[in-house]
């Protein structure tokens, strides 16, 4: 599979899903991002990102059983696929390589 390029927001979403493990559906993902980054994510933006990541093959999803607290609707649980992990790795590596040597310039400014 060809290398997948991940935008910053996509990385954030994938990382949040990884952190949540089995409990990753849109609501906790959004909460997790808000908690860790202090960033309020628009609902629509998150759904769009999730859909795009699934199309790219970085995410897999499955539907839960219908739940009464959702008015009888199912949850869509996400998990990061192998190629998602690979994409995250390469993104991290690229960033770390670029960060190397410039930390000192940013510190203390």
């Amino acid at each position, binding site marked *: 599979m060809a290398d997948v390029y991940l935008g910053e927001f996509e990385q954030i979403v994938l990382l949040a899903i990884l952190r949540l493990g089995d409990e990753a559906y849109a609501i906790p993902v959004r909460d997790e991002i808000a908690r860790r980054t202090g960033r309020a994510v628009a609902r629509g933006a998150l759904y*769009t990102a999730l859909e795009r990541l699934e199309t790219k093959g970085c995410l897999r999803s499955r*539907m839960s059983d219908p739940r009464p607290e*959702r008015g009888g*609707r*199912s949850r869509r649980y996400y998990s990061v696929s192998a190629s998602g992990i690979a994409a995250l790795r390469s993104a991290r590596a690229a960033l770390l390589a670029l960060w190397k040597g410039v930390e000192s310039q940013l510190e203390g400014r």
Partner: protein
Amino acid sequence: MNEPPTPPRLAEQLLAFLCPSTIADEVVGDLHEEFAGVARHKGKVAARAWYTVQTLRLVTHALRARARQHHVPDPHAQRPGDSIMRSLLTDTRQAFRLLLKQPALAALVVLTLSLGLGANAAIFKVIDALVLHPFTLPDIERLTLIAETGPEFSLDLQETVSPANFADWKKQTDVFEQLAAFDWWEVNLASREEAERVSGFRVTANFFDALGVRPALGRTFTAAEETVGNHHRVVISHDLWQRRFSGDPAILGQTILVDAVPHEIVGITPAGFSFPLGSDIWSPLALTSEQAQARSSRYLTVIGRLRPGKSVAAAHAQVTVVGERLAQQYPEHNKEHGAKVMTLAAGMRDQGLGPIVLLWQASAAFVLLIACANIANLLLARGAERHRELAVRAALGASRFRMMRELLVESLVLACAAVPAALAFAWFGIRLIRINLPPRLVRFVQGWENLDVDLRLMFFTLALAAATAIVFGLLPALRASRPALVDALKDGSRGATVGRNRQWIRRALVVGQVALALPLLVASTLSAMGAQRFLHGAQGYEPRGLLTMNAELPLAVYEKPESRRQFVENVLAKLREMPGVEGVGIVNVLPTSGGNAGRAITVEGAPPVDPANPPYVDYRTVTADLLETMRIPVLRGRGFTPADSEAGQPVVIVSQSLATKHFGETDPLGKRIKLGDSPWLTVVGVGGDVIHNWFGRRNAPTAYRPYVQAPSLGLCFVIRGNGDLASLTRPAKAAVRSVDPSLAVFLLMPMQEALAERTIGLQYVAAIMAVFGAIALVLAVVGVYSLMAFMVTQRTHEIGVRIALGATRRNVVSLTVRQSATMALWGVAIGLVLSFGVGRTLGSLLMGVISGDLRVSLGLAVILLGAAAAAAYIPARRATSIDPMVALRQ
């Protein structure tokens, strides 16, 4: 029970509708889930607002997801064959731009239209929920009602089937998967805390299967339970289960006292199920073999579930054949009797409701037509202003079709812009309709719970708006797109001189508005007068200061008349002791109550009557001081006294109408009559007439017997208080319960409240018609005003010349007012003719309670004329202030 708050239904439906099915569960479900948390922290109202905002923010996401799914390419890409769509789009944009340039006009049109559309939408929803889709049952289209037809069933009644005929139908038809029957049943329900009166039905064992309803808990009935002795079992409604047993599942298998007889609870229905009508309890229909073989006592209601693939028409054909066969087989019972099949919704419909809601819909349509006339006039005026622009374009080669389309698209845009406001009006109207029905009555109106703004209503309103746009847009578009080229271009800078022809159309529109408004005003005034009369008119007794309550003595306990007399005596003694009580009485049937009691009357010495068809009179058993308590006057003779005892001479008091009907000119006092199988009763008094029921029983012949001589099981207590009636309710209830704690006291309310409840239907008619009348009046007046204002503007030049030539203020004002008065007169003349028809229709719809009244029509005509003249006066005043120099220089 405290239900968790639910998100606003409309918003949720909208979102679910917009989202493609692949993401609907995720998006809608997430929002639903989060809603609960928001509701906990911020409260229900804030949460609903939050939900709505979130929904709106997700709209673009949903639409994009939809677009991605359908691979819709870039909408701006040029494709062959879509030029019409593209130019329509251009037209729409153009229309928006033009309308935004004249925001006042656009706002006026949108407001007018949304009033008209909103009124129609609200009434449509009433029809949809109460008449077209009153039941929410699975496979409703396969459910039917089967009724006997016969000479005595002139109306579409439901309780028409005799047990024996039902059994034969069951054997001889094969179009039905299930054929079930039920019979009305109202009972006292005793329990630990307090007895209650509940309504229910005795049903065949397959009743629930026929409806396709499974119990939420437990089971329904078995065929073995349809036998006498084995039938003391009940299924109770979810509502009753929650209300009386706090939703305790352990109640299954326990016994409760139903009319003082132990019954086992075997099942609980799903929430919301109360079929046929506000039912709380069901028991097996167990008939003795004698009852089961009865062919001429017709009291069952029969429903059937069609086999898959069978139609109502096929069922009707088969049942008709069976009915004819039974008529031949049992001529003594079934002669002239047949059978028919209807859909359940049609069969169980409230017979009085249909015509009334149709009246409302017709009125709403009138309102919309008036609104259309208004808007057409405004657009015509605007067309006149755009005259030159259109003429220039036509001269440059624009096709008439193209220009017309453009103008129609403008109308469509206006109409669509009115839809949200119309839905808001409709929502508000439906709210008003909903909150004004007493909660006690809600359960008796099938489909009441479905009254709400929903997707269907949105589509209806959109479709109606589009149709309306064509109605009000077509005429202006036709006219404006045919400009008289040469005239228009020649006309210099003075603006279009409006042709005679065009003026004529505009005046005709105003005349039409006035003509439509008058009958609406007449209808609303007549309804209001009728409702007033019901509530506050003379009733034959004095309802003010009366408190009423009801109890039904169970036969199992009060079989002996002596026990009934004892009970009544004890309760009356306790009630009389209560502070603030002036008088107490008991009667078997209260005025305004739904029921009635009648007896065949035989007058001693009168010529014999047809024994098969004897005259009936209303039958009341009353305690000695009832007439005094209710203030029913004794016109001649005497009232009852304690001397009229059980062992005394059997006596009777007759109403004035009975005396007139059965004794004519002779004095009834001292004469003797028989009521049913009673002994001969001596007439000792003549009482005043009362209005038992405004719709059918006004001043009906009535006979009163002393309770001690004819003790009934049904008791209505009448208490006259001299202060606050509310403070009497608790002690009154306690007084009954202190004598018999197992007895349910029901319908405890002031007599005036009972009257108001009884006439609630007419009050609804009056209130809704009043709203329509008011809207119609306002729209018509606005119509007159805007046309006159326009005309004055158009004629500024002319009026300036007149003033310059010496016309006085008075001349100018009268010129304008006269014009508007002429139009109003024409309108009123046509309107009067229409009102006459409306009065007659109302009269026949409401069974003579309301009748057309020429004075009312004429009075309203004068008011309408006055309003039209006043509407013209404002522009007329403006006309007088025209400065001739300025006008001429223009």
